[in-house]
C-alpha cells in the first residue's frame, strides 16, 4: 500500500520539465493543442517567479512557490469517484453537471435536449475540441493575466486539459444554473481547472463552479483559469466556491470580457486553501455594460488570501461595482488590492470598489490597497476600504435582549456575510454555503470587538 505513496513523493513536481515531457507524451490531444502546450511551457520556464517586492505581490508574505511536492495524479479509484459524486450536491436544480477529480473527468450529465437543440454547448474541453473546434479555436487560451501571475498562467496553459466550455448562443435564456465540480483527492495532486464561459448576444444563464477537497489532510496545488466572454446584451451570472482543504495552495486567475449592454455578475466565496491567490480582471469593451463583483472570504488559522482585482473601463456609460468582504480569525491574513482604470473615452463611467475587513481576533491582519487611474473627465468613481472589529454597541444590544455573547457574535458575523451571500440569488445554494461557513466557526473563540471608546 505504501509503494504508491512513495512513488508519488519521489516523482518530479509539475514545475520540472521531466514532468511536463511525460505529460505531453501521454496526452491524447490534437497536435495543434500540443504545440500550444509546448509554447506555454517555454514561457513558463522563461518567466521569473514573482517576488514580494513586485507591485502585484505586495503584502503576500506567506506564499512560497515551491512546486516540487505537486504532481499530476493517477486516475482516481472507484471508491473515490463514488464518494465525490455523492458529495457533488450543492445545486439540485440545474441545467447540467460536470465533475472532475484531480483533472480527471468522472461524470458528465447531458444537458436537456431542448438546450442542445438550440445550440447550447456544455462539454469537457477535451470533448469540445473535437465536437466544436471552431469555438475552441476562437476562445481557448486567448487570455492573459495582467495581475502578476503570468508565470502560473503559463503553467496552467501548459498542463490544463481538464475543464469545460459553456457556450450559450444568441438569445437563449436559461434559468437553472450549470454546475461544475473540481475535486482535489490524491495527496500532492496538481489541478489545472479551465473554465471557459461564453454568452452569445442577449443570452442569459448562470454557472456554479465548486472547488473542494475530498480529504482534509492531503496537500495539493490548484491553478485554475476562468475566462468569461459576454457578447452584446448577454446576462451571465458566475458563482465560484473555493472550499479546498487548508493544506492546499490555490490560484484562481479570472478574466471577464464584456461587450455592449451586458449584465455580468461574478460572486466568489473563498473558504479554503492554506494560500489562495485570486486575480479577477474585468474589461468593459462595450457601452452600457453593468458588471457587479462580489466576494466573501472567511480566513482562519494561518491562511493567507491574496486578492487582486482590475476593473477596466474602455467604453462609456458602463457601471462596475465591486464589493469584497473578508472576515479574519486566528492569525490569518488577507490582502485586497484593487484598481479601477477608466480610459479617456469612457465618459459617464460609474465605477466603485469597496473592501470591508472584519477582524475577529486581534492576531489577524488585513491589508488593503485600493486604487484609481482615471483618464476620462466625466465619471463617478469611488473606492473605500474599512477594517474593523465587531461593534461593541451592537454587541450590547444583542446581550440586552438576553442573547449570549457567543451566539451574538455569530449572528453579527453572519450578518456581515449576508450582504454577499444573498447575492448568490439561489436559496438552495445559499443555505448550503451558510452551512459550509458555519462549519468554520465551530469551536472558535472570537475576541475582537471594538475597543472601549475614550469618553471626552
Amino acid at each position, binding site marked *: 500500500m505504501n509503494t504508491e505513496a512513495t512513488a508519488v513523493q519521489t516523482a518530479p513536481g509539475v514545475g520540472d520539465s521531466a514532468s511536463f515531457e511525460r505529460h505531453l507524451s501521454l496526452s491524447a490531444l490534437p497536435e495543434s493543442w500540443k504545440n500550444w502546450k509546448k509554447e506555454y511551457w517555454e514561457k513558463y520556464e522563461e518567466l521569473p517567479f514573482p517576488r514580494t517586492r513586485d507591485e502585484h505581490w505586495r503584502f503576500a508574505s506567506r506564499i512560497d512557490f515551491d512546486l516540487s511536492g505537486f504532481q499530476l495524479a493517477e486516475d482516481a479509484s472507484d471508491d473515490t469517484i463514488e464518494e465525490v459524486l455523492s458529495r457533488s450536491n450543492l445545486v439540485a436544480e440545474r441545467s447540467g453537471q460536470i465533475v472532475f477529480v484531480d483533472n480527471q473527468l468522472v461524470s458528465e450529465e447531458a444537458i436537456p435536449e431542448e438546450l442542445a437543440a438550440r445550440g447550447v454547448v456544455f462539454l469537457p474541453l477535451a470533448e469540445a475540441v473535437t465536437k466544436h473546434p471552431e469555438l475552441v479555436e476562437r476562445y481557448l487560451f486567448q487570455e492573459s493575466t495582467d495581475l502578476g501571475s503570468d508565470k502560473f498562467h503559463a503553467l496552467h496553459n501548459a498542463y490544463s486539459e481538464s475543464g469545460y466550455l459553456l457556450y450559450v448562443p444568441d438569445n437563449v435564456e436559461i434559468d437553472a444554473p450549470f454546475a461544475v465540480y473540481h475535486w482535489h483527492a490524491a495527496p500532492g495532486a496538481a489541478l489545472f481547472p479551465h473554465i471557459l464561459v461564453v454568452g452569445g448576444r442577449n443570452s442569459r444563464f448562470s454557472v456554479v463552479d465548486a472547488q473542494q477537497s475530498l480529504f482534509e489532510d492531503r496537500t495539493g496545488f490548484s491553478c485554475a483559469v476562468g475566462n468569461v466572454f459576454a457578447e452584446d446584451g448577454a446576462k451571465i451570472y458566475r458563482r465560484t466556491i473555493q472550499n479546498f482543504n487548508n493544506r492546499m495552495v490555490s490560484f484562481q486567475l479570472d478574466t471577464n470580457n464584456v461587450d455592449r449592454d451586458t449584465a455580468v455578475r461574478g460572486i466568489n466565496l473563498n473558504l479554503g486553501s492554506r494560500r489562495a491567490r485570486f486575480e479577477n480582471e474585468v474589461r468593459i469593451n462595450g457601452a452600457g455594460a453593468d458588471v457587479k463583483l462580489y466576494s466573501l472570504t472567511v480566513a482562519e488559522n494561518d491562511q493567507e488570501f491574496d486578492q487582486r482585482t482590475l476593473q477596466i473601463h474602455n467604453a462609456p456609460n458602463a457601471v462596475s461595482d465591486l464589493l469584497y468582504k473578508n472576515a479574519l480569525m486566528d492569525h490569518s491574513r488577507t490582502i485586497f488590492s484593487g484598481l479601477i482604470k477608466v480610459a479617456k473615452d469612457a465618459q459617464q463611467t460609474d465605477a466603485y470598489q469597496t473592501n470591508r475587513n472584519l477582524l475577529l481576533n486581534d492576531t489577524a491582519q488585513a491589508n488593503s490597497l485600493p486604487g484609481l487611474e482615471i483618464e476620462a473627465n466625466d465619471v463617478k468613481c469611488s473606492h473605500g476600504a474599512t477594517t474593523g472589529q465587531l461593534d461593541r454597541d451592537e454587541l450590547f*444590544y*444583542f*446581550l*440586552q*435582549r*438576553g442573547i449570549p455573547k457567543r451566539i*451574538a457574535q455569530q449572528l*453579527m458575523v*453572519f450578518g456581515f456575510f449576508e450582504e454577499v451571500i444573498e447575492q448568490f440569488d439561489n436559496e438552495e445554494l445559499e443555505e448550503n454555503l451558510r452551512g459550509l461557513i458555519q462549519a468554520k466557526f465551530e469551536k472558535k473563540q472570537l475576541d475582537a470587538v471594538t475597543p472601549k471608546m475614550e469618553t471626552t
Partner: protein
Amino acid sequence: MSQLEIKNLNAGIAGQSILKDFSLTVPKGEVHALMGPNGTGKSTLAKVLAGHEDYEVESGSVLMDGEEILGKEPDEVARDGLFLAFQYPLEIPGVSIANFIRAALQARQEDGEKFDAPAYYRRLYEKMNILQIDKKFSARSVNEGFSGGEKKRCEILQMSMLEPSYCVMDETDSGLDIDALKIVANGVNLMRGPDRGILVITHYQRLLDYIVPDKVHVMYEGRIVHSGEKELALELEEKGYDWVRDELATTAS
C-alpha cells in the same frame, strides 16, 4: 419582593460620578415615570441597570424580585427579566428582525427544548399587527434604514415578544411624531399588568398623556428630588426644570 428596587446607587463612567445615592422602587403592576433635564443621569441609570460594561458602579444595590443584578452579565440580567428599550436602537445589518427575536427567545429556552417556529411566527405577526408594523419588516435587517418611529416600534415589538418582568424605556418618545407616539403608547399600555413593572424615562410630559403613570419622579443631578402622583408631570411641564433647580438652590441656602 415583586419589585425593582434601586438602593443608594452610586455609579458613573470614565471616572466621572453621575448617579449619586440614587434610590427608586418600581413595584410590579405599576408604571413609573422618571423625568429630568438632559445630562442629569437618566440614560446612565438605564445602562447601569442593564449591566453595560462601560459604566462603573461604586456602591449601592439593585434588587430585581429580591435578587441582586449588579455585577451580572448583561445577557443574564436580560434573561432574568429586565428589558431596556433603547433611546437609540442599534442597526444590525444582515440580521432579520425575525431571527433576532427568535435568538432572544431561544436563549430563554431550556436545553433541548424545541422551538415552535409556526407558533412563533403567528405570535410575531399578531404583535406586529397591533403595532402597525408591516409583516414584510420581519425579514428586514434589525433597524437598518428604519425611520425613528419604526425603530421605536421595533423596540416595543421586541418587548412585547419577550414579555419581560421589568421594562426600562429610555426616551421612547424621542424622534416620534404624534401618530407614532400613539401607536407606541398603545403598545406599552397593552403590556401593563400585575406581572410587570415599567419605568418610563422621558424628558417631556407629552408621552405621559398617552402612558399615564402611577407615579412620577423628578431626577436632578444624579438623584431623585421629587416624587409624586401623575399631576407632578403637569406641574413640571408648566413650571419647567428651572423650577427644580431654583427650588434646590433655595433649600441649600
